[in-house]
């Protein structure tokens, strides 16, 4: 579904990603871990098409298409979803109104008829249960004054509404207490299928107890320096990242 080959990207002339290679197949869950500042969010942003990042080398193929050629909205319409680490506030625009615009634009791109208000609300009701989100929250201005947990829950709710094929969750666990973590993970798990894939960005193994990854990758200094299975995450939890840094630094001498 997704093939990333030798991806290099920089911001304001500073290289951040320095040759990422990754293959994600339908039905898989990949966890991306790594110390703060290693480039995890940058990778997520580049995949989603944030303009500030300049791709200097490499390619990304998504469902057979050159993803980097597509505008960010078209990537979304093709099925790429990013749950933001820091969701943005839009004053005066309710989540409901925002999502209705989004869902119908995505549907139009996919050749589906627009949902009328009644149909939209019934779909919404159904998806609300997935993340146990309250109708009241959805009527408020998007993310304005939301608690950290509410924001993250709202991101997963949006994911449920947009039915993406590739979901990238950037630190969705941060700021969640244990109950919220369970609810959010539960939502993500229910949305998984053999036709979709998930990339979970986190630096705690905690989340991976709930969303069990098929593969775990460690990013350090803009490269994937280690890949493994769930056991790798356990090892990181136990030993931290220093041993990986040492390994990488030793190898580069």
């Amino acid at each position, binding site marked *: 579904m997704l093939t990333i080959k030798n991806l290099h990207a920089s911001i304001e002339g500073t290289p951040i990603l320095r040759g990422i290679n990754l293959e994600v197949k339908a039905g898989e869950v990949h966890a991306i871990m790594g110390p703060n500042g290693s480039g995890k969010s940058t990778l997520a942003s580049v995949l*989603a*098409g*944030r*303009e*500030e990042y300049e791709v200097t080398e490499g390619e990304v193929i998504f469902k057979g298409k050159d993803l980097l050629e597509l*505008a*960010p*909205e078209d*990537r*979304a*319409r093709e099925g790429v*979803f*990013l749950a*933001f680490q820091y*969701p*943005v*506030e*839009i*004053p*005066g*625009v309710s989540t409901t*109104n*925002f*999502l209705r*615009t*989004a*869902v119908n*634009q*995505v549907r139009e*791109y996919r050749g589906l008829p627009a949902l009328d208000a009644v149909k939209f609300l019934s779909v919404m009701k159904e998806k609300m249960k997935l993340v146990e989100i309250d109708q009241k929250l959805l009527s408020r*201005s998007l993310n304005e004054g939301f608690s950290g947990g509410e924001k993250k829950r709202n991101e997963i709710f*949006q994911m449920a509404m*947009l039915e993406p094929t590739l979901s990238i969750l950037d630190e969705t666990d941060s700021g969640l207490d244990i109950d919220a973590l369970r609810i959010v993970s539960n939502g993500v798990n229910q949305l998984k299928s053999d036709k979709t894939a998930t990339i979970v960005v986190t630096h705690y193994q905690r989340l991976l107890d709930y969303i069990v990854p098929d593969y775990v990758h460690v990013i350090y200094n803009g490269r994937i320096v280690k890949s493994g299975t769930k056991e790798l995450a356990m090892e990181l939890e136990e030993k931290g990242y220093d041993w990986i840094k040492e390994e990488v630094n030793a190898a580069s001498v």
Partner: protein
Amino acid sequence: MSKDNKILEELTSKDYEHGWSVDLETDDAPIGLNEGIIRWISAKKEEPGWLLEWRLKAFNNWLTMTEPVWANVHYPKINLQGLRYYSAPKNSNKPKSLDEIDPELLQIYERLGINLNEQKRLQGIAVDVVLDSVSVGTTFKETLSKLGIVFCSFSEAVHKHPELVKKYLGSVVPMTDNYYAALNSAVFSDGSFCYIPTGVRCPMELSTYFRINAANTGQFERTLIIADEGSYVSYLEGCTAPQRDENQLHAAVVEIYAGKNAEVKYSTVQNWYPGDKSGKGGIYNFVTKRGICAGDHSKISWTQVETGSAVTWKYPSCILKGDYSIGEFYSVAVTNNYQQADTGTKMIHIGKNTRSRIVSKGISAGKSQNSYRGQVQVMKRATNARNFSQCDSLLMGDRCGAHTFPYIDIQNSTAKVEHEATTSKIGADQLFYCNQRGISTEDAVALIVNGYAKEVLNQLPMEFAVEAQKLLALTLEGSVG
């Protein structure tokens, strides 16, 4: 009399003879402005003597006045002698009913969300249409007259309700008020008139649509709304003009009178032609709007969505004379390309326990300049006056400007006046967030802007609000990315 004035007078009295020589059969006044033209207009409309006198007095006042220059707008001087001051659709073409109005015109109205056909009329909005200088038709007259409500063209009111016109004309905006108001008082052609009798709640929205059609024609309409004791009315005003290379002048006057316990809501969606992308053409919109809360516990509320015109100069105001009276001003002013807007309000607190609320949302894009100018005045007698002002500016790009000029004048120490102001930009973060959800940049801008303006749009009657939203999006098309 100064020498200049003498010369002027000589010139005008000369032109006056010339003015009379014009064939009354034609429906266009000759180009130019002088006493003769004013007599011509008045005669054309078969006005009573007192009104002609009133016009002439206004004209003579106007001659002594100079064009104001304090507003933050820049435009080449308008050649007032190069304009035509009256242009009626030719009798043969003049629609006898709304159903006969030019389909192209109907389309333009429809784009604005104004549907003049029967279906829409059934939804309960009474409409008066002003084409160029003349009111071409008013719907729902009979339903309204059963309640004693008068809603008709200004000219008709002059003939059928002279006592009301005589009593209130110029009572809120005196003919000497300002340069453009004086000019309007001299040459106004038509407009809408509305009277709601004591204790009557007008059961439908009353609405007027103004359209400038003819080239080189100034439009000077006059609107007078009188809400007698304990009455209520919601009034809508919409405007359009075709695209023309040359600038066209529009200088209207709106007067509102609210008696004891009366309430008037006045909503405007202004969509005059703003000029092209390079700043060529467009309407110069110099409007004087003022309401007086004459009685105790009365309320006047102005809501405006200003998207059009090359230059806008407009300050809908409230004189809060009655005790416990309330004035409100809700405004969204959008400027794009080379548009300039200097708009705001004046709240004049005279009565005790008077309250006013100002919510102004400016949106600037392109190379436009958007100024808010607001005055809150609390007079000596106005014990316990309250004002709250919220003035926000939203910038799109970095070549436009937003300016805020609040003036506060307090002569009573019990007054409480609060002013809040913010300036923000549409952030790349917000746009990217929308894009990531599959929303195009244009639609993202529309969504964000409508969210920003929501508090004001919420004040509009439902149908108007939806159309105003579309209009905002239309105005800002192509302003980002």
